[in-house]
Each structure stands twice: as structure tokens, then as C-alpha cells.
């Protein structure tokens, strides 16, 4: 680590002594780990002297706009190259970003396509290189060099994302950096696919590349490449995509070099700096238009992916003047041996995504768009985990953190006079998809995931229903892919691929966009398995808006002890194309039918066994009794809801045969329900008195603050807690040990019973 405080118990050291200590420490650094000075800061670096001088010489807004457009086009070109040439599924669905960074390491201009949250995250490793390698005689940064990076503790979301970073020089001086980042998937972790939910420490999370030089003279060094290939399950992927990222960077570099040739280094430096400063100023201006107020909200995570529990994401959003402050204090303490923690930069990245996609979609992408917004967290919490905590499933916390932010921001937007998009309810936020791995029908070792994670349902808006399976919360124009193409590469079929899941809804005056069913079964491999890594099987991971409901819950269902491919050929009439029918009717004799939470660790699947999940719905908006009855009936017609739900929830009366609406009866039923609501209601003070409890319930493992006191963080029971500022280990027992203990207790009880009988 960098500076370590030297306790001086006897006397305060003099400045000379301090200098000596500092020199000694600098000369004897054991290990250059993640630097909190870099990792905790998401704002722009201060304007450098070189930038100041360049701006002094060239600051014409119109010329700068012209150069910026040219560099933007270069980034887009690089992005297209990565998307087209990349071998990782992530590259193909746009889980990619390319960008140009200032000489100080800030991301100034990013590709228009791709994953937005990267725009607030990929500057950290560059700053690490600048701080540690630039002047290190054993490393150095020279023309033709390229650095690779994937360890999220040095920046980025999780270790599946790999970046290639190239410095650009002009007349021997470093003028900027270019980088491309791709969600690669496989990284040699204890489970295939790069996002192990079984990881209990960073050592289980596969490749941990702090930024290091892997390219010299624009050539990838073969020895290092071989080492990296040797460390992962997909050496082919590692090779292909390192090359792809390098060539995309080189293409962007070409554009920069042309700009340097036509406009000179001052114009380039000035363009990069002023672009960021202008965006930052605009964000401050927009924030200042919001009403001064505070909104409090929370989201519940219902598991650690290993066990069921209740984990709080606490969020208070305050706007005052031109300051906007996200306060996540009170959220659950970090799990010492569970990977659902996130580094704080990951959380900030997702919040940046929120603003760039859901609040101000017209803003240019780059680090500056989130730079002036403040974020407060407890140290060593799930929202700001320590260096020693695993974070390979950080998506669980950054996505729920995003949703808490989205829910709070909606209330500001509602009251804001100038809107840049529609007020909307939260988007579905979990990656309900299958992660897979093993040996394919072509003999290749693979590990990755289905693109269905991109089909998250959109929240309803102020004036219409949410779109089904619209986009993941972390990208626009993402793709859920074509099964015919996937099946060429992997040895399983999606027997149900895209069929709307009936009643998996988020009702409201405007309902959320709904999710669809996926059923997979391995077919042509003896070495293949699946995993799922989501929360929300027991508690919805979001809230509805202004009376709209949250989504339903989505468990994992399995049917084992059957070869469904034999059934499909020999007795096809037994097969059903919905989870509901298969699990209720149980048509395959002798098979086992089970449901689970969505944190399934990697599990080898036998041929023909069924794994079934559903993509989720975005939240509803407004009171569902105000929903147009015609919309309710259309939902029945399109297989989104059952007639029973229409009657029970929406109170719509209709002829079940023709679906003709009885408007009079509907109005009567709705009036009756409104009266019933009034009858059920109690005054607020009375409600608080009966509802509030002093401590979390004893029968649930609860993590996070309880009630108003955000400084007391519970760690699984009313008896275990810590303060927000004083970290403590928070170990979870191995679920297998827990199960063994349960079974042993039952055996003991049976023994005791048996003893009595005997």
C-alpha cells in the first residue's frame, strides 16, 4: 500500500523525521496494491499546468467542437471494431467501451455505444500507471507500449472486464491515452464464466491483473500472453480479444495522430480538458434546477447467492443548491467471505449510468457527467468493500444500489420543471440468465453466459406501460441474441427461449415491461454445466413508483432425473412450454421437481435435465385501480396475465369467453376496493406504533441498519452488529455446514426419538 501512518506514541516526530520515515517507506514498499487515493476519487484531476497553457493558447469553442466530433468518430470506429472482431459474447452484445483519456488519466471522450458504467470506472488503472509505472525505471511508459488490466480493486466493475491501455505521445511528450475495455467472461476463477458466486476470497476470483505492460512496440509479448492463456479456461478467447483490443486502440490512435498533425497538441489537450470541464459545469447547472429536498428509500437483497438472508441497501438522496449527494450509509456491512460486495467505484459507475441513460440521456459519455455528484458510504460495507473482500458478484450490490438511486431520482424528476426524459419507475435489475461452461460439442472448453441478461423489463413511465425485455440497466441497444447462432457454439438448447412468463408482473396504472421464460437442457456434451447469479427469488429487488407495484419474485426451477430429449422424441405430448405447467403438472414420471433461490453455484447438468428461469419485470407506475380496463384485457390476450389476476388485482370484470369488458361492473368493483382500502387504513401514528419493531426479526438473517439509526449495522442477528465507521469481519458459515448441522440435529432428534421407542 502507499502511505502507512506511523504511530508515534512517545513524541510527535519533527518534519525532518517525517521526511526520513516517508523516504524509508517509499523505498521499502512491499507491494503496490490498489491506491485509495485513486480508487475513492471519481472527480476529474485538477487542471494541469500543461492543460492550462494549452487552453491559454487555444480555446475556441467551435474549433474544439470540430476536434471533439472527430475524436468521437474515432472512438466509435474503435468500438465497432471491438464489437465486430471480439470473440467474447460480451463484445458481441456491446459490453464494451473505447475512449480517449487525458494525460492525467481522466476519460474525456467515450464511444457512443457500449456499457456506460465503464465511463466512470476505467480511469483508475490509468491513474495507477501514471502514479507508479511512468517514472519507474523497471517499467516506464513509452511509445508503442500497451498495458493490460482486469482486477476490479484497481478499477472497473469485476474481474471479467479486461482493458488494453495505450499511451499516445507527441514529440516525446505524453499527450493522452486510449483504451478499450471488454467484458470477456472467462478468467480462470473457481467457477467458469468469470463471475463466481462461490468465491470466498479474492483468491477464488481468477486472474487478478493489476495494470502491467503486455505490449511493446505495438506487439503483444508472447511470454506474457502464454502466461495469461495458461491461467484461464479459454486460451483462445484470451488471445483473440487481447489482439482485438490492441488493434481497436491503434485505430483510435490513428485518429489522434491525425488531429495532432492538423491541429497540434494544444488543440488536442485543450479539447480533452474543456470537454470534461464543460460537461461538469452543465451537470452542476442541471442539478441546481432540481428542488432542494431529501428522498429516502431502500432496496432489499434477498441472498448472498449462497444463502437466503435479508440485506439492506439504504439510500438517502439530498439536493441542496448545486450539490447532489447520494448517502448509502446504513447499507449492509461487507461480507468477508461472500462476493456480493462492490468496490465503491463500481457503485459510482452504475450511478453514472443512471444519469447518462435515465436522467440526462442527451449528455455526452465520459467521466465528467458524474464527476460533481457526491457519494457517501460506510467503509467496509457492501457498497464500499475492502481490498480483502471478494467482489466477483458486485453486480448484486451495484444493481440494487442503482435501483435505489433510480427510485429516489424519480421523485426529483417529477418535481423538476425541465425534464430531459420521462419520469419512470425502476427498471428490472437482475441478470436473470444462465451462465454456462464446460466442453462444447466441438471439443472446445468454454465458459460464458447467455445474452438474455440484456432483456431486463423496463419500468412503466408517466404515460405508458414499460417495454418488455428492453435493455439491461447498464447499456443501451444491447442484444438478447439469436438462439440459432448460439446453438452452433454450445451443446445445449433453449427449449423455451422467448415466451412471456404469465403473471410475472409489476402492476400499476401503467404496468412494467415483462420478462420471458428460459428453459435450457444440455444435449451434446458430458461435461457441461450451468449457474445463475441473481437475487429476487423471494423478495423483489426493487420498489414500484407512486402506487405502482414492484415486480414479482423469480425462483430457479429444476427437473432432474429425466432426459427431456428422449421425451421430446418418444412422448412429445408430455412436454409443456411453461414453468407453471411443468412444475404443477409434473408430467415426467420419476423425475424430481425442485425450486431454488437464484444463486445456483456451478452445477454439472446431465443430458436432458431442465433448468428453468424467467427474466424479470420493470416496476409499475401509479395506482393499478386506475389502469384502463382495455389494457388489462389486452394483457390477458397477449398471455401476460391470467384472467384471475385481472379480476383479483385490477378488479376488472369481463366475459371470460369473449373478453368483453363489463365497464359498469368494473367501476363498481373498483369503487368497492377503494372503500375497502379506506376501511383497512389506519392513521400514520397508529401504523407506526403497530408496525415498527426495535430490532430486526430473530428468525431472519438481517444485515444493515434498522430504523432511523444508520450507524448501527446488524450482521445477521439482533445481537451481532458494528458501527458504520468501525469495520468488523462478517463471515458467513458454509451453507453445506449449515445443512449438515441441520441434518445432524434431525438425526439426533430421531436418535433421541428412537431411543425413547427402544
Amino acid at each position: 500500500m502507499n502511505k502507512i501512518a506511523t504511530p508515534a506514541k512517545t513524541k510527535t516526530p519533527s518534519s525532518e523525521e517525517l521526511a526520513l520515515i516517508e523516504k524509508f517507506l517509499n523505498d521499502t514498499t512491499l507491494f503496490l496494491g490498489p491506491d485509495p487515493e485513486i480508487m475513492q476519487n471519481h472527480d476529474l484531476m485538477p487542471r494541469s499546468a500543461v492543460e492550462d497553457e494549452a487552453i491559454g493558447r487555444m480555446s475556441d469553442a467551435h474549433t474544439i467542437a470540430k476536434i471533439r466530433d472527430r475524436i468521437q468518430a474515432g472512438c466509435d470506429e474503435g468500438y465497432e471494431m471491438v464489437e465486430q472482431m471480439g470473440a467474447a459474447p460480451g463484445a458481441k452484445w456491446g459490453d464494451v467501451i473505447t475512449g480517449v483519456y487525458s494525460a492525467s488519466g481522466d476519460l474525456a471522450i467515450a464511444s457512443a455505444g457500449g456499457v456506460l458504467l465503464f465511463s466512470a470506472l476505467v480511469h483508475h488503472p490509468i491513474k495507477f500507471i501514471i502514479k507508479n509505472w511512468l517514472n519507474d525505471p523497471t517499467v516506464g511508459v513509452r511509445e508503442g507500449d500497451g498495458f493490460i488490466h482486469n482486477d476490479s480493486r484497481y478499477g472497473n466493475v469485476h474481474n471479467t472486464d479486461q482493458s488494453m491501455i495505450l499511451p499516445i505521445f507527441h514529440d516525446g511528450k505524453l499527450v493522452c491515452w486510449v483504451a478499450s475495455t471488454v467484458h470477456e467472461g472467462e478468467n480462470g476463477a473457481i467457477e467458469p464464466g468469470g463471475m463466481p458466486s462461490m468465491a470466498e476470497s479474492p483468491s477464488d476470483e481468477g486472474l487478478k491483473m493489476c495494470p502491467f505492460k503486455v505490449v511493446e512496440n505495438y506487439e503483444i509479448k508472447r511470454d506474457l500472453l502464454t502466461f495469461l492463456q495458461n491461467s484461464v479456461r479459454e486460451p483462445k478467447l484470451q488471445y483473440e480479444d487481447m489482439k482485438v483490443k490492441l488493434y481497436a486502440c491503434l485505430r483510435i490512435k490513428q485518429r489522434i495522430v491525425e488531429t495532432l498533425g492538423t491541429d497540434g497538441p494544444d488543440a488536442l489537450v485543450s479539447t480533452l480538458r474543456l470537454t470534461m470541464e464543460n460537461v461538469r459545469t452543465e451537470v452542476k447547472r442541471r442539478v441546481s434546477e432540481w428542488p432542494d429536498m431529501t428522498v429516502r428509500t431502500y432496496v432489499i437483497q434477498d441472498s448472498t447467492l449462497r444463502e437466503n438472508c435479508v440485506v439492506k441497501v439504504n439510500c438517502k438522496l439530498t439536493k441542496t443548491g448545486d450539490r447532489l449527494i447520494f448517502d448509502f450509509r446504513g447499507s449492509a456491512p461487507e461480507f468477508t467471505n461472500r462476493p456480493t460486495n462492490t468496490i465503491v467505484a463500481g457503485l459510482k459507475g452504475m450511478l453514472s449510468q443512471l444519469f447518462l441513460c435515465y436522467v440526462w440521456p442527451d449528455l455526452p459519455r465520459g467521466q465528467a457527467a458524474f464527476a460533481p455528484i457526491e457519494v457517501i458510504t460506510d467503509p467496509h460495507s457492501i457498497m464500499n468493500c475492502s481490498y480483502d473482500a471478494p467482489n466477483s458478484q458486485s453486480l448484486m450490490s451495484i444493481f440494487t444500489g442503482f435501483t435505489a438511486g433510480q427510485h429516489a431520482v424519480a421523485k426529483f424528476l417529477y418535481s423538476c420543471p425541465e425534464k430531459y426524459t420521462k419520469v419512470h419507475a425502476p427498471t428490472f435489475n437482475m441478470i436473470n440468465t444462465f451462465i454456462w461452461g464446460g466442453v462444447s460439442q466441438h471439443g472446445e472448453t468454454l465458459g460464458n453466459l447467455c445474452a438474455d441478461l440484456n432483456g431486463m423489463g423496463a419500468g412503466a413511465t408517466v404515460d405508458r406501460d414499460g417495454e418488455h425485455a428492453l435493455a439491461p440497466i447498464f447499456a443501451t441497444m444491447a442484444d438478447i441474441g439469436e438462439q440459432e447462432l448460439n446453438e452452433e457454439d454450445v451443446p445445449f438448447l433453449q427449449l423455451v427461449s422467448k415466451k412471456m412468463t404469465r403473471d410475472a408482473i409489476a402492476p400499476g396504472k401503467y404496468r412494467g415491461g415483462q420478462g420471458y421464460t428460459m428453459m435450457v437442457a444440455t444435449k451434446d456434451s458430458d461435461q457441461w454445466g450451468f449457474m445463475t447469479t441473481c437475487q429476487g427469488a423471494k423478495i423483489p429487488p426493487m420498489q414500484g413508483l407512486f402506487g405502482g407495484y414492484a415486480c414479482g419474485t423469480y425462483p430457479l426451477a429444476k427437473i432432474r432425473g429425466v432426459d427431456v430429449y428422449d421425451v421430446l422424441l418418444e412422448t412429445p405430448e408430455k412436454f409443456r412450454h411453461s414453468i407453471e405447467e411443468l412444475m404443477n403438472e409434473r408430467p415426467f414420471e420419476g423425475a424430481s421437481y425442485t425450486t431454488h433461490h437464484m444463486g445456483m453455484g456451478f452445477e454439472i447438468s446431465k443430458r436432458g435435465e431442465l433448468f428453468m428461469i424467467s427474466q424479470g419485470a420493470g416496476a409499475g407506475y401509479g395506482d393499478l385501480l386506475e389502469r384502463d380496463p382495455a389494457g388489462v384485457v389486452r394483457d390477458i390476450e397477449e398471455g401476460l396475465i391470467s384472467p384471475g389476476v385481472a379480476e383479483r388485482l385490477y378488479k376488472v370484470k369481463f366475459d371470460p369467453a369473449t373478453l368483453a369488458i363489463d365497464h359498469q361492473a368494473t367501476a363498481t368493483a373498483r369503487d368497492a376496493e377503494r372503500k375497502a382500502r379506506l376501511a383497512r387504513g389506519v392513521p400514520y401514528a397508529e401504523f407506526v406504533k403497530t408496525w415498527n419493531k426495535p430490532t430486526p426479526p430473530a428468525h431472519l438473517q438481517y444485515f444493515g441498519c434498522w430504523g432511523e439509526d444508520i450507524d448501527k449495522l446488524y450482521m445477521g442477528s439482533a445481537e451481532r452488529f458494528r458501527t458504520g465507521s468501525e469495520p468488523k469481519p462478517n463471515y458467513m458459515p458454509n451453507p453445506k455446514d449449515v445443512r449438515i448441522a441441520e441434518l445432524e440435529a434431525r438425526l439426533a432428534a430421531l436418535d433421541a426419538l428412537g431411543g425413547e421407542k427402544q
Partner: protein
Amino acid sequence: MRRVSVDIGGTFTDCFVVWDGKYIEAKALTTHHNLALGFNEALGKAYRDLGLELEEILAQVDSVRYATTLGTNALIEHKGPRIGMLVTAGYEATVPLSRARGYGEGLDILGQQDLPNAQRPDPLVLPHMIRGVRERVDFQGDLVMPLDENDVRAQIRELVDRGAEIIVVALVNSVVNPAHEQRIEEILLEEYPSHLLGAIPVVLSHQVAGRKGEYVRASSAIVDGYLHSTMYHALSALEQNLRAHRYEQPMLVIHNSGGMAQLNSTDALQTIHSGPVSGIGASEHLAMQCGLGNVVATDMGGTSYDIGIVVEGGIKHYDFNPVIDRWLVSVPMVHLVTLGSGGGSIASYDRMYDTVKCGPESAGSDPGPACYDRGGMRPTVTDADLLLGYLDPQNYAGGSIPLNPRRAAAAVEDTLCDELDCSVIEAALLIREKVDDNMANGLFTELRARGYDPKDFTMLAYGGNGPLHCCGIAQNLSIDKILAPPFSSVFSAVGAGNLHQLHIHETSLYMVLYDSNSRRLFDDYVRFNDIVADLKERGTQDLLRQGMAREDIHHSLELDMRYGNQLVQTTAVIPRHEVRGPADVLAIIEQFSEDYGKRFGKGSQAPEAGIRINTIRVAAFVRHETVQFEDIKPLPAERRKSPPPPSSTRTCHFVGHAGAFETPVWSRAAIEPGMQIAGPAIIASEVTTFLVNPGWNFVAARQGASWFLRA
């Protein structure tokens, strides 16, 4: 040669007649209720020029060829039948979900980024008109679940009861095993025989698109089914009109593949965008005949800027999954990029960067630019062009639209001048610079993404605003030569007259040329050769059916290939159509490597990861006689003549040049081939304005061709 070619656009029907060495251009308004009327009127202008009767012309021409935007318009207007659809059970939501990203297909980047406002377009098939049938085959075409015929009959009845007027069938993996789709067609014919009232047309997806991808293929089949009757009736009416006027040859329809075929060999889907594609065809032909080298064809109109690439050596650029209106489809279409920049692009103040933004919003033609005086209050590119002195307020669009400079000035002043603290002229210059930069950036990206350097290209500029903006665009790209082509006002119709009869057949497959795991080269030569032979024969049969002689039929072979598990499929044109040994396999790999390296950079190839063929494609074609352009190259500088005195002067302002220029103005008709005019200058014609920026020369050539050459 005697030939008629027509481009039926949304506003005008353009006609180009070749008659024994004479070339006649004619235009008429498109008559949407009966396309034949507009066609007859346009052709009437031409035959009167020739002193002939309509029947005399039609009886003697070798062909009449149509390019049309009819299909595009029908899609935009959402006029089509009620479609019922059968898909593999478990895939019922594939089309409604449109791969998630369908909400943004066909939108600009802002529309794609704004997720709370995202909304999928109104569907061509309503969700409740899509039914699953119980069946399944796998990626190799092996049976997974047999087709449940009783289920099929029940689902068909359900769709018919719900009012289906046409049935589209799109089953998973039907391109590798179409048996279930074919059986469904048989069942449909059994239930609703074609000779009886109540017969229902059926479209099978594997017959519309030969590539894998269940969504894009279904989407293609839907668009095809949706347009089928509209296109059939409109084109049949045209054919009947020809017959009634003694035309006895088959009517030919231009395809977006860059070829053409008879009506009975044309899918509706193949006609979409055939007009702009014909323009690229004309560019290719012109480049080849006149030795222009690489050409980038640009068509700037009121709302859009179309870009097409034609390179020496015959490499074709296709989009295999183009977006048509808002729909992603699977059809090999000549590559065409459309940017949202045109005369109607709206300029606004960019508060964040304290400069001017231009587009993507457009004032279109209604209300149009502020200077049209039709209620438009926001400044547009045309307003800037007017204020900078380039346009004649009284003679714009042949005098059909009087322009009001005061309205233009007010719009610019109200929107930009206070914010930017500048004069109206300075603001207009910023608008002009911005829009030209936007187009230059789009063009640059387009060329560079394919591995080309803009400075190696000649720019072809056509469309109403092309010659007005081309110098400004080329200035930013290091392009030194711009050609406003001959017959530019009917350029797409010219292209339609030059295309060959062509059919493309392709098949998706999993064929490993080099297996990096086993380190083995492909050796199943029989399989490769059989597939190629089959595709060739299918194309041959298409052409034989249209009366072509077998000996006139040629084929070209293209392979879509990739390294490892990439998404990209680089197309390699393979001269040798048969593989007999390792040398042939290595030759294919070498060709692929060369094309890939050109596109993505030398050294970017990754054969170590394995090499695969994903698609084999064969184009079968018959070459026809083509329009002969005269030598339109500019005369050498020393042989160029001076122009006559200008007819007038106008005060103009130019980007990058301080102050006003008293700019001479000529009529295009007064400029003879070989004359050179140094910029700044304006040369006006009825259909466009040729703006020669300072530092450029205008050189007139034969057949109305006009060159802009950097001085």
C-alpha cells in the same frame, strides 16, 4: 441499345431512356393511386423529345426496368394485411421482443440512448396473432421434437378465426432443415386450398432468407408478407400498363442486392431501397467506364445524406442484416449508410459547449426551413445557405419555392446570435461548418471502418443539396476530386438501366477450415463442392426460368468467414469455385486474411484461434449491354476554356474566409464542356446549385458532368 429505366420515388418518378445513342432524362410527379400514370407522363416527355409514340417506344426497347421506394413507403405508412404467424413453441415472444434492441433500430443515437422514452414501433404482427407450434430441430437440422400436425391445424384455425389474411411461418433452424415449414405449408393448403375462396397465402421464412438467426429471418418473412400484396398489385398494374402499350418483354424489377429479376422471381423484400441502390450501381458503372478509381457516392437531400462505397476491383459491400424502416432483417443488400443530415437539419445552440448543434432533428418539407415561410421557426441548413448568399430566393427548386431571407435571418438571430454573441452571418457560417463536419465525419468513419483512406477516393455528389455542400465536406477529408455525375437528376434511374439480371443464393453452415484444437485443415472437399454446386444450380435455374441461355450465366462465389468465435464475418471473394486439396484451402485462408487485414489493420488477423466459414453465397448473373458514358474526365488544365461572363453576382460568405465575396453566378446551361470556373463561384441549374468554394475549380465535362477540383 434501346432501353427504359425508371425510379419511382415518393415524390417524383424519374425516367431515363436510351435510344440508339440518345440519352433522355424525364421526370413526373409520382401518382400513388396508379403508378402507371406517373410513368406514362414521364415517358411521354421522353418520347415527345424523340418524336415517337409511346407504343413505338415500348414495342422496340429491350427492357423496361423499375426501381421503386413503394415498399419502403408502405412500411412507413403501415399499410399491409393482418398477418398470422406460426413459430416454434417456446419462441412466441421472439418477434415482439425484437432482440431487445429493436426499440432503437432505425433511430439516431439520441433516440437509442434515451431508455425511458424507448418504445418499439407498432408491430407488423400483433402479439396475439403469433402462435407456437410443437416442433423443434437442432442446429445441424437433426430432429429434436416431431411436428405435431394436429397442433398445427388447431393453431392455423385459431389464426384464421382471428382474422389472419396471410400466414408467415418461421421455425427455429428451418434453414438447415426446412421439412417442418414445408409440411405446414402443405397442411395449410389442405385446409385452405388455393383454388377455393378463403385461400390464404403463406410465406415460409427459409425461402425468404437463407441465413441463420431466428429473429432476423422471421422479421424478413414478416416484412415480405406484409408488403407482398401491395407490391404485387402495384407492380402488376405497371406490367399490365406496359402490355397494353405493346411491350412484350418481361418487366424487370431492381433488387436491393444490386441486380434485377422478373416480377415472378422477385420477393417484396428485395425491392426495398432499390432506388438508392440503383444510384450506387450507376456510380459503380460510371467509375468503371470512366476510370474514376475508388468512388464514394453521396446523395444529399432535404432530410438525409446517403453514402455508398464503390471500390476498384469489384469488391461489393453488403449489409446482411440491414435495418428497413425500423426492422432488422436478413437480406443481402448493397451497403448504404444514411445520416440524418440534409437541408432541413435544424440548428440549435449547444449550451454545454457554447457552440452550434446541427440535427438530428429535421424540419422536413413541412413546415420546412424557416425561409420557406410555411411556419418553420427554427433555423435550418437551408436557411444558412440562403443567408450566406448561395441560394437565389426567387429561383429555388426551379422557382417553385420562393425563399424569404428575412424569415431565415430572424430564425438564426432568435436561436443563436444572442447565445453565441455573434452576427447572423457568423452564426450561418457556424451552421454551415457544423453540418459539413457532421457529414465529413460520417463519411470518414464509414470509409475508415472498412479500411479505406478517404484521400484515395473521388466523391460523387448528387441529390438536391449534394453539389451545394460537397466542397465543404471534401475539404475536411483530404478529398481533391468531386464529380457531380451526368444525368444527376435521374441518377438512380440511370443506375437501373445498367444493372444485370442477378440472383443470390446462400446457405448458413458450420464449416471449420482450420481447427485450432486439433490443428487440422479442412479436408471434406466433397461437402464444400456439393454446396457450391447446389447454390450455383439454384441461381442458374432462376435465370433459365426467365429465359436466359445457360451459356450466358456466370457465377461468383463469396464466403463469410471468421476467426475463432468472432461476431464479424468478413466476406472473401473466392475466384476458384472448387476445392481439390490443401492448396485450395490455404488459398481461401490467404484471401480471407488479406481482406481482413485491409479492413482491421495488418497484423490483426488471428488464424491461431481457428478459421470458420459461416455462409457460402453464390451470385448467378447474366451480363447485359450497359449505357455507355462519354469520356467525362476533366480536360487537362492547359486545355480548359474560360467561361462566358457571369450572368450576375451575389454577396457570399465562406467558412474559413473572412469578409464577403462578390461571387459571380452562371447558369449551368451556359457552361460548355471543358470550361473552368475558379471559386468562389455559383453555377445554378433548375434542380441544384453548384457552389464552388474558394480554393476549388469547377470544370464542366460532357453529358452534363461537373467536376470540382481542388486548386
